[in-house]
């Protein structure tokens, strides 16, 4: 089996794929990319924290028209993972408003984006319905 690489650097692969964030030591605010200072309290020190793998959909849309090259339709959502909001798609769900609802419980899932010419497989994350 070839190498794997995460779609984004805040997705950690391995036996237990999960998301990580930079957490402000001053106020606990969390960011998925780097900050020079916290946007909330201006503190400058951060630590790496794991984000809970399950959560609740707080907002979603079903995108039917997107920029060229982006497959549609898809569900874009904001998931509240134990108090940390995460942006991600919903997968393994029927793409209509009867099956996708705010308040639904979801968990982190991963899927393959394909293999590049040296055999490395890129792995992306999304959320899927719990149970």
């Amino acid at each position: 089996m070839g190498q794997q690489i995460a779609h984004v650097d805040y997705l950690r692969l391995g036996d237990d794929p999960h998301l990580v964030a930079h957490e402000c030591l001053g106020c606990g605010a969390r960011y998925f990319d780097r900050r020079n200072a916290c946007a909330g309290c201006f503190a400058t020190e951060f630590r790496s924290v794991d984000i809970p793998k399950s959560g609740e959909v707080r907002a979603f849309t079903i995108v039917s028209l997107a920029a060229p090259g982006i497959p549609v339709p898809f569900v874009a959502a904001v998931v509240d993972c134990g108090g940390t909001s995460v942006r991600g798609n919903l997968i393994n769900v029927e793409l209509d408003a009867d099956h996708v609802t705010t308040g639904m419980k979801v968990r982190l899932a991963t899927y393959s984006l394909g293999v590049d010419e040296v055999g490395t497989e890129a792995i992306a994350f999304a959320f899927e319905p719990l149970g």
Partner: protein
Amino acid sequence: MASDDIWILGITMTKFGKHPDKDTIDLASEAVMGALADGEVTMGDMGVMAAGSLMGGLGIGQALQKQVGQTGIPVYNVTNACATGATALRTVVMSIKAGEADMGLAVGVEKLAGVGLLSGGGRKSDGGTWEPRGRFGAVAPVDGRIGTETMPGVFAQIGMEYGHRYGGTSFELFARISEKNHAHSTLNPFAAYQKRMSLEEIMGDVMIAFPNTRPMCSANCDGAAAAVLVSGAKLKTLSPTQRRRAVKIAASVLTTDPYEEACQVLPNVNTLTRNAARMAYEQAGVGPEDLDLVELHDCFATAELVHYDNLMLCKEGAAADFFNSGATWRDGALPVNVSGGLQSKGHPIAATGIANVWEVATHLRAEAGDRQIPGAKVGLAHVIGLGSACGVHILERAAA
């Protein structure tokens, strides 16, 4: 007419729509010449100028001066996404307030007809090997894989989140908001679209990002708007007609989004609007109950709903009930977007934040023709640019 008040002396907007025979400078010039004529002044009277255009290239203000009058005055070229027009207006307000000029010109212009979907812009994958790039070390575009950066999708989620928090929303409710604005536009000859649409037509149209169908999205179009502002002290020296038609800027506020959990994941358009509204009501010494009409930033039907709440036109959490009461129709208790709003009047981005002020001012001057809100004395204009920036202006009719 206190000396330190700021007034609109002249203001105009071009018809919004397709202007294939006019370039950006032509359109902006039409608005500028219109605003100067409306105020019975010339470029020679202007002490400062602020100009905005997202797509019009660099130095739009100077290019415009070469078309209508070069006098050596300072030009501030401004951009603030969809709040660009309001930012240009506010820049002139600040300059007059600071005593650097007693009269100034603000202009916003955009050529957007046929541009299509506006998104954050995904990065193209270009084959070869996976290579991490950008702030997230992404090996492939994130738009479409980690949520959406398209505007219809972002604002759809903002409306859905409001519904999740407070209840009472549905696809049909959002579509009914759009039905209202399309109905309002039938009375506005400046609107890009003046076609009344039934609820069935709106709900049955092409889905862009649930629950926003195409007519529930702001219409990309061409347009420009410009305003001449004057200090209270200077206005006192002008003609009776100029004084009678002048409209007072009772409040001019610009805010950005303060940090809150989630605001960097899904833009929070609520808190900065609420903050701007609170400051504007305080500046103007009026409350939402004093407003005769509101032009708010209905870039999508889902956005209009949340701003009823953010502008405190209703009780917190009660936006759906407020709309269902009929209040925001033109014959309701507090008409909202009688111009047709961005969904039907159109949304040439940088022009929008001055065009909505023109709409309110035109009612306060009792010059709005068929769509006049009778006896309008006080009105509010609101825009929001993602990123985010929020502009709120409260206008009052001249006392005399």
